[in-house]
């Protein structure tokens, strides 16, 4: 038994291990050992204490780190990462250790998952959201929509924005886990989380959920119209909680669902509007000035108004120029569908179209695409209806055109 002393040397190596662990995954420059973090954001209490403990380890303040960890565990004894760090702090008193997580048992995968979580939570604590920037995606929310969610997978964070009427305003953010294999879901069972624009479609009754889903589950609208047209399949992408035996799960842990801890899910669920709340899932959020969002919104609004106007005009050629040649509607390609439209419009004496409750959301990713969802009042000489309409607009040759259209 060589374990005898508090080992100053082992503390040092633990620190180096930690820094290495963090540095390995950090996508932006950050150093733990040189300076204290500029401003440790006010994170949810357990997470904040855990992060403080990790930062203390970096500063060789082991007693303080141990206190923080014990405080975390007093509240959430099932916070596995905190248990792992506690084990490290204890083990470091008996021998030199070089990284986070040195158990003699358990699977390599489990330990790797917890290390990833440590890295993710440290990165979250280091991320400073510039107060004057907003995600590029929230162009316009209708008045009835109170909140919108935007997920940044590289930061393992779900941001909540409130619709102020004049724009989106940051409310909260939560640590989340996504699919084991990351983003860009393609196939059933690929354990990936889709990238795209979705809605919360329903709420599963608690009494029918197993413990695995924690305190609630909210299915999302994957696959959406754009996913289906591209042949993407699979289903059952939910927002849900965590089982009782764990406070949280590693950043990449689910079969594609977005997983929050139960405490956070409860807070979030109060803000969800079943059937509408938008959920935008991005690889990495593009933060822009509100001006840029306003410009994009204006640009798209002009295109939509022009489409509405040309439809009313019964000038079918003008109307059709708003549609992409790639357009697809219920299996009809552009020319088949255009022929049908010409026939229908020719039979009308007049057409009146009104749009309201406009939601305009930019699609995350490389392609320039936006999803417009709105109430459409259609009246004509021989037919009238009111429907929720959804259009996917893409920007081709500097012009917004409709790629997909259907009932929302």
């Amino acid at each position, binding site marked *: 038994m060589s*374990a005898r002393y508090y080992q100053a040397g082992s503390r040092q190596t633990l620190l180096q291990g930690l820094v290495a662990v963090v540095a390995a995954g950090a996508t932006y420059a950050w150093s733990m050992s040189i300076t204290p973090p500029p401003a440790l954001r006010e994170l949810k209490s357990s997470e904040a204490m855990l992060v403080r403990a990790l930062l203390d380890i970096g500063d060789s303040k082991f007693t303080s780190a141990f206190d923080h960890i014990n405080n975390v565990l007093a509240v959430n004894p099932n916070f596995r990462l905190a248990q792992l760090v506690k084990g490290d702090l204890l083990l470091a*008193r008996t021998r030199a250790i070089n990284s986070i997580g040195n158990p*003699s*048992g*358990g699977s390599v995968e489990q330990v790797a998952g917890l290390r990833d979580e440590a890295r993710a939570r440290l990165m979250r604590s280091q991320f400073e959201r510039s107060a004057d920037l907003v995600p590029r995606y929230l162009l316009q929310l209708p008045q009835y929509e109170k909140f919108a969610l935007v997920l940044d997978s590289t930061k393992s964070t779900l941001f909540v924005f409130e619709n102020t009427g004049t724009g989106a305003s940051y409310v909260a953010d939560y640590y989340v886990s996504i699919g084991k294999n990351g983003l860009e879901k393609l196939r059933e069972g690929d354990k990936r989380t889709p990238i795209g624009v979705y809605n919360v479609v329903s709420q599963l009754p608690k009494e029918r959920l197993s413990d695995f889903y924690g305190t609630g589950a909210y299915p999302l609208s994957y696959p959406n119209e754009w996913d289906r047209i591209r042949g993407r399949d699979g289903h059952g992408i939910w927002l849900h909680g965590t089982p009782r035996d764990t406070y949280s799960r590693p950043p990449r842990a689910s079969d594609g669902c977005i997983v929050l801890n139960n405490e956070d899910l409860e807070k979030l669920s109060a803000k969800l509007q079943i059937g509408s709340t938008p959920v935008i899932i991005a690889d990495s959020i593009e933060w822009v000035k509100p001006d840029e969002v306003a410009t994009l919104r204006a640009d798209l609004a002009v295109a939509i108004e022009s489409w509405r106007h040309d439809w009313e005009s019964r000038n079918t050629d003008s109307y059709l120029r708003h549609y992409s040649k790639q357009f697809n509607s219920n299996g009809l390609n552009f020319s088949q569908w255009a022929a049908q439209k010409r026939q229908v419009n020719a039979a009308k004496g007049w057409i009146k179209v009104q749009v309201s409750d406009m939601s305009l959301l930019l699609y995350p990713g490389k392609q320039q695409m936006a999803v417009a969802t709105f109430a459409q009042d259609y009246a004509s000489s021989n037919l009238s209806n009111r429907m929720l309409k959804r259009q996917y607009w893409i920007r081709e040759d500097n012009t917004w055109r409709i790629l997909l259209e259907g009932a929302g």
Partner: protein
Amino acid sequence: MTRIPLLRLVATLLLISQMQLGFAANSYEDASKLFKQGNYPGALEKIEAVITANPRDARARFLKGLILTEQNKPAEAIKVFTSLTEDYPELPEPYNNLAVLYASQGQYDKARKSLEMAIRTHPSYAIAHENLGDVYAKMASEAYDKALQLDRGNAAAQTKLAMIKDLFSGSVVPGKGSPEPIAEPGGAATAPSTSTVPVKPAVPPKADSDAVLAAVNGWAKAWSHKNADDYLGYYAPSFQVPGGEARANWEATRRDRIMKPKQIEVTVGSPKVSFEADGRAVVKFRQGYKSDTLDTSGAKTLTLVKNNERWQIIQERMN
């Protein structure tokens, strides 16, 4: 690996009891003899009589604690050792044994606190350090199990308290009511024992003694040559940095101190090497230090351990 490392139970208390009555002393020897023969009920009866005659007899109460431990009555043994820590807070042994009992019940945090008390009163108490290391390892393992949701069964149930049958001396001789830490762990090996327990003297092998001296001389030479890397290389990874400072900070300060003077001469005068039961070497010598700005000398004690055939410093003390 779930079996708890064997915690070392201190089985003798080197107490210079100032109130030994002849009758009580004889009875104590009898009880101790019976205890060693494994006659625990007999030993208990004798020792109870001693304690009744002199309720403050720490040595007798300590033996009672050991007997109860052997009789597998941990709750009663804990009571005995706890009251000893209350009446004699300067003694490390009751804290240590209390810790062993707590550990055997899976109460590692209580065990940790007791051991830390033992070390607080006697920083050089090797057994408490070792036990504390084991308790930390056990607590770490528990935390890891929770982190990874490993079910290793009831760890406490698997704990096996190991009594040291081959009785050996504690490493310190507590002075009467003295709260002062004993600064010379090396003295323990030859401490006079008032008990019947034979103390095994640690005889330093000649070769080791030479190697230890060579290391100390090398250390002084590296310092004199202002070779900071060499100098720091004489310190073990487990070196107890004074004041619990971070190793890196300490190293930086040392480097600075070594590099700053234009000239340094460090001498090792009349070194004496002794070895502890656990193999650590303690070297006492007169350290001379002469630089362009300072000329001092003083008594120094270095404690060294053998790491990969190399003697390295784990503790450094100016007396």
